[in-house]
């Protein structure tokens, strides 16, 4: 399996100047909206602690809660299936559809079905799959994976969408008015809702006490996918369990505030019992989660509620775009989840971070994301998964940082270098730090030179 080259992927995104500027601004705007919401709630930090503790309790009693959920869902008239991995999940979904001779499937956004690569699997078996979330539909029609877990097409501009829709939906290629584009998707998807054989959603939460599936959306497409067809399938990762209904209060208050800076999603839907004359199936999916639960440093990532706040705040994500991560999950949460699926393939991702810790401080369920990123770096170095250039640079850095004398000499030389090196050497292919940025002017003296001149001579100057 080829290693994902995050830096290479980013450089492609960075070349499109309009795109990267808009992307950066749009996501930072969401971060600011989130801040306004959370700062208006005196109990925000209390909610974070509660959310983290509820998730940790649930995950440390997960087998019992899964059994309770299965019992209650079964009592509700729902058929519960269990899938070890992506392949079994896809086979189960196809089996359910095929048993009902279902040939068309309308579905709402689900990171899990993306993780399982379900769409191509069903399509090669003659199932027409229609993504109905606007952003996810844009990505489906453009044959690209989502680049953000909440905003699948956030890396695209309206002109890109106009091109995709003109090629696939037959809209006017010169009209990139956002209302026109959204209305075009609404009117072309509506007939699919009315006639589809089956509907599908993911889940934001699954409640053990009642067997309920809770789906938080804004567009109305998830509810349309459930309320119209005679067959409904929900795919749920086993980590989505919550013990009781009352716990939803904590999470629903935090999810959309963290994700979009709105107090709640337009719709918070609770599906429990299939309506008369229809079938409801739930597929509980492991796909590596039970293994992750046993990883001392990394099981906390299972607390994730997929709000995307860590992505919106991350300076690396905002300037490199989700597609550069090459995995289903991108941004800081992707950096710590993707390597559990394939360490070699995703071994470059933990280095796509400044370790500034901003992801950790905005996480509503208090996942120590930046600490886990650091831990992954250690594991990747130990298992010899570092690329040669990085390994050599780290070896040199280790030597220099380990010796005060060498360090001083290096700092002085670097300062002199920035001041005196010709541009063609500073901004060449060999110096990664000189790409896409101007290196700041070095101050006339290093801190140590300044300290020795101004403070160093004071006798017993310490107080």
């Amino acid at each position: 399996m080829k290693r994902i080259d995050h830096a290479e992927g980013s450089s492609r995104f960075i070349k499109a100047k309009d795109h990267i500027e808009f992307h950066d601004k749009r996501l930072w705007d969401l971060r600011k909206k989130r801040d306004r919401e959370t700062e208006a709630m005196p109990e925000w930090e209390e909610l974070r602690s509660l959310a983290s503790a509820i998730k940790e309790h649930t995950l440390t009693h997960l087998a019992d809660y899964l059994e309770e959920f299965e019992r209650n869902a079964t009592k509700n008239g729902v058929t519960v299936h269990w899938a070890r991995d992506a392949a079994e999940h896809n086979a189960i979904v196809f089996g359910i559809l095929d048993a009902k001779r279902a040939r068309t499937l309308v579905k709402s956004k689900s990171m899990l079905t993306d993780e399982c690569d379900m769409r191509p699997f069903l399509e090669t078996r003659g199932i027409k799959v229609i993504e109905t979330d606007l952003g996810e539909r844009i990505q489906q029609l453009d044959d690209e994976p989502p680049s953000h877990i909440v905003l699948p097409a956030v890396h695209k501009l309206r002109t890109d969408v106009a091109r995709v829709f003109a090629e696939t939906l037959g809209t006017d290629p010169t009209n990139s008015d956002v209302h026109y584009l959204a209305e075009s998707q609404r009117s072309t998807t509506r007939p699919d809702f009315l006639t589809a054989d089956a509907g599908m959603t993911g889940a934001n939460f699954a409640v053990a006490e009642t067997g309920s599936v809770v789906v938080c959306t804004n567009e109305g497409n998830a509810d349309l996918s459930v309320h119209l067809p005679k067959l409904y399938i929900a795919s749920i990762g086993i980590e989505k369990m919550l013990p009781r209904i009352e716990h939803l209060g904590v999470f629903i208050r935090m999810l959309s505030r963290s994700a979009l800076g709105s107090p709640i999603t337009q719709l918070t839907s609770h599906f429990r019992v299939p309506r008369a004359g229809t079938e409801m199936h739930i597929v509980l999916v492991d796909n590596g989660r039970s293994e992750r639960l046993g990883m001392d440093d990394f099981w906390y990532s299972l607390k994730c509620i997929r709000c995307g706040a860590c992505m919106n705040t991350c300076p690396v994500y905002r300037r490199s775009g989700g597609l550069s991560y090459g995995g289903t999950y991108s941004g800081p949460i992707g950096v710590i989840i993707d390597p559990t699926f394939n360490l070699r393939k995703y071994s470059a991702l933990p280095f796509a971070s400044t370790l500034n810790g901003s992801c950790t401080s905005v996480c509503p369920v208090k996942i120590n994301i930046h600490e886990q990123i650091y831990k992954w770096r250690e594991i990747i170095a130990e298992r010899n998964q570092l690329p040669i250039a990085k390994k050599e640079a780290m070896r040199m850095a280790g030597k220099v940082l380990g010796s005060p004398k060498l360090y001083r000499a290096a700092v002085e030389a670097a300062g002199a270098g920035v001041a005196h090196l010709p541009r063609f050497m500073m901004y060449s292919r060999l110096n990664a730090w000189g790409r896409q940025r101007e290196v700041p002017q070095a101050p006339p003296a290093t801190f140590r030179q300044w300290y020795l001149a101004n403070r160093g001579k004071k006798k017993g100057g310490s107080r």
Partner: protein
Amino acid sequence: MSSRDEILGRVRKNQPAPQPLPKLPAFDREIKAPLAIFKANLLRMGGKFVEVPASGSITAALRSLFPAAKVFCSAVPEFAGSRPIGQVRAPADLHDVDVGIVRAVYGVVETGSVWLTDREFKVGALGFLAQHLVVLLDPAELVPTMHHAYRRRADFDASYGVFMTGPTATADIEGVLIHGAQGIRSLTVIPLPV
């Protein structure tokens, strides 16, 4: 071994040391003028709030709110409409409804949300296929926060239940907010005691 037993076995084996379940605080608070705050939050989420004078009729109010609408489908006794919900055979029959009318069980002040279940909708698709939705709400039926809503445990025995907050919306293209994504284009709350 079945996948079920294999997954549960591996989960049991790998579960970290048990952590306690925290007790939830009440998050009680005194809210002055809850209806005014509910209204402000509903408007913020793109919803509308229309008061009908005690002397006026609901029918007249609905006709004036939606002068161009042809098909009104009502799930409330206060208004007959033109498409009786009881005669709907399949959910897709509601595809041409201009305005749906339902009564919410209660509202949530914190968010401007209304709680509706399959019992109120009669046909769940009414809340999503209609172009516009009008929601009657008893102004006495308000809870302060989502915590209070989720403590009404019996409500969640409904086969289907939803907190609706304003109309359906999307900002998936360049963050431009559009009301009327895939479902209802507008949501109007009318305060009206039962």
